[in-house]
């Protein structure tokens, strides 16, 4: 099923024509309505009416999270307050959050692209959809909420937390579609097992997981414990929230809502465009947003693009699962380390739990990487050497994947914090 065949199966030439029209309009709109863009264009003598091809976008200086921070809270808004009907904000862990606003048309567009994405993942109006994302300023919950309502599914807005009740309702209401962060979904599955639920107690069919990265290993674990088909979707509050792209049932990349978002894959250092298929930073231009239009927004996320049509019939360009956020990337002993690489090593190891923490410290002048994992296999306690073998095994696998040595620390079960929203698994203790 395709929710909006006109847009999702449009041939490339027509799509690019549509994107160019919209790009021209949004550039002019930004210049006229957002001071930052007006000043920036003037300072480099860029004429907002001289855009002839899509590749002319390269002349626009990129927008960064700093720009949003410097204009906190409403400085980047292109419309007067009376036209704004909703505010959201990023989960920003330190300092002020990044604030975004929505006009009625923005909410409309958001609901539309979310509905597309839900259908792509296999959802229908028959589904009972439980949203176990935290409701509030966070875009995840309300984004899915509006999209699923648009589609006509039965929405159960439980929010995250109070997991026992979440599970009870999941069973009693016959929930078929689960929305959560991958970390929380996995926790729900584990707790369900502990509480004595069986997979047959639930009618779960599909999981739509997002707001944090999800490795294929993590996805398999979730599918195993919950007995559903898990899909990944992508977005960020600055751009709209979830809905920018998402997987169809073939899971060969995330279909981009190209009529609303123009995505470039650029080299993070030179800002030059990467050839199709090569990994680089995802840079997004919103083509239709009214309240907070962004030109060439640097997401810091690393991915690849594929413009070939998909088996599902959609012609939209697809991006790979996010390989890492360049902000999340750790440089340890001069080596680039993505937490997702560590996760893909740890999750398949059966003797340890699914929760882990990563610590980076300074030992003398050198960096040290330490990984904490929970020991759950009691049969290893017979012999001390079995525990040593386990840590040696994990260490060896980490070294093979990361190229550097990591200390592996076994800790007691449930001693690592259980996250219900975005997991924060990296603690960098250098420079402290």
């Amino acid at each position: 099923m395709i929710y909006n065949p006109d847009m999702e199966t449009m041939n490339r030439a027509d799509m690019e024509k549509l994107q160019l029209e919209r790009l021209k309009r949004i550039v002019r709109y930004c210049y006229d309505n957002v001071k930052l863009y007006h000043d920036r264009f003037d300072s480099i003598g860029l004429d907002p009416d001289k855009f002839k091809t899509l590749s002319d976008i390269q002349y626009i200086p990129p927008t960064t999270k700093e720009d949003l921070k410097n204009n906190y809270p409403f400085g980047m808004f292109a419309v007067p307050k009376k036209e704004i009907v909703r505010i959201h904000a990023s989960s920003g862990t330190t300092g002020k959050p990044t604030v975004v606003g929505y006009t009625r048309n923005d909410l409309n567009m958001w609901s539309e692209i979310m509905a597309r994405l839900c259908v792509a993942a296999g959802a229908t109006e028959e589904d009972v959809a439980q949203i176990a994302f935290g409701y509030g300023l966070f875009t995840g919950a309300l984004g899915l909420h509006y999209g699923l309502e648009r589609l006509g599914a039965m929405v159960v807005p439980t929010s995250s937390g109070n997991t026992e009740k979440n599970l009870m309702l999941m069973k009693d209401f016959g929930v078929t579609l689960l929305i959560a962060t991958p970390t929380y979904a996995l926790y729900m599955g584990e707790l369900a097992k502990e509480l004595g639920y069986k997979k047959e107690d639930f009618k779960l069919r599909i999981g739509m997981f997002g707001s944090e990265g999800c490795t294929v290993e993590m996805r398999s674990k979730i599918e195993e414990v919950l007995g559903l088909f898990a899909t990944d979707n992508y977005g960020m509050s600055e751009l709209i929230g979830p809905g920018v792209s998402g997987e169809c049932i073939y899971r060969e990349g995330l279909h981009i809502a190209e009529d609303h978002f123009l995505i470039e894959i650029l080299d993070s250092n030179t800002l030059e465009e990467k050839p199709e298929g090569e990994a680089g930073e995802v840079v997004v231009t919103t083509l239709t947003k009214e309240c907070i239009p962004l030109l060439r927004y640097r997401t810091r996320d690393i991915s690849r693009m594929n413009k070939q049509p998909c088996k599902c019939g959609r012609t939209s360009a697809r991006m790979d699962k996010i390989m890492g956020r360049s902000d999340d990337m750790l440089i340890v002993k001069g080596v680039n380390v993505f937490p997702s690489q560590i996760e893909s090593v740890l999750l398949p190891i059966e003797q340890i739990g699914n929760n882990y923490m990563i610590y980076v410290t300074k030992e003398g002048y050198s960096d040290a990487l330490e990984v904490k994992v929970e020991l759950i296999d009691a049969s290893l306690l017979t012999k001390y050497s079995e525990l040593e073998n386990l840590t040696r095994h994990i260490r060896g696998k980490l070294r093979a994947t990361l190229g550097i040595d990591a200390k592996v620390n076994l800790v007691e079960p449930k001693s690592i914090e259980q996250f219900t929203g975005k997991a924060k698994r990296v603690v960098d203790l250098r420079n402290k």
Partner: protein
Amino acid sequence: MAIKQLSIFVENKPGRLAEITNALSQKNIDIRALSIADTTDFGILRLIVDNPAQAESILKEDGFTVSQTDVIAIGLVDRPGQLAKALSVLQNAGVGVEYMYAFVSREDGTAAVIFRVENSALAEANLAKEGFEILSKEDVCKL
């Protein structure tokens, strides 16, 4: 007649041993013998208790990684040379000792030694043949 020992994974942080022993004492579990091997980060606590099955479920409920391990226990007269003799028996039988610990009963002057060996049955047969007293679970609880 192997007896059951509890093996518990314990992180090296203050208060963990107190928590384990408190949890057991609240349910009236009597600890007969214990040993702990530790590294800088974690250790394995080994306990001989009067009701290992119950103790295991209590600790599991409290979230500990815990398992039961077969060990053998022998009674020795508390006199120089007795342990050495027992160990030679095992050596001659080709049975390797993974770890061991001992405790002494003040009342009757005997010592009990707990062995974890590769082959409990073979170890017991050889020790019994040489006249060593193999202790049952009940014997250990009475000490």
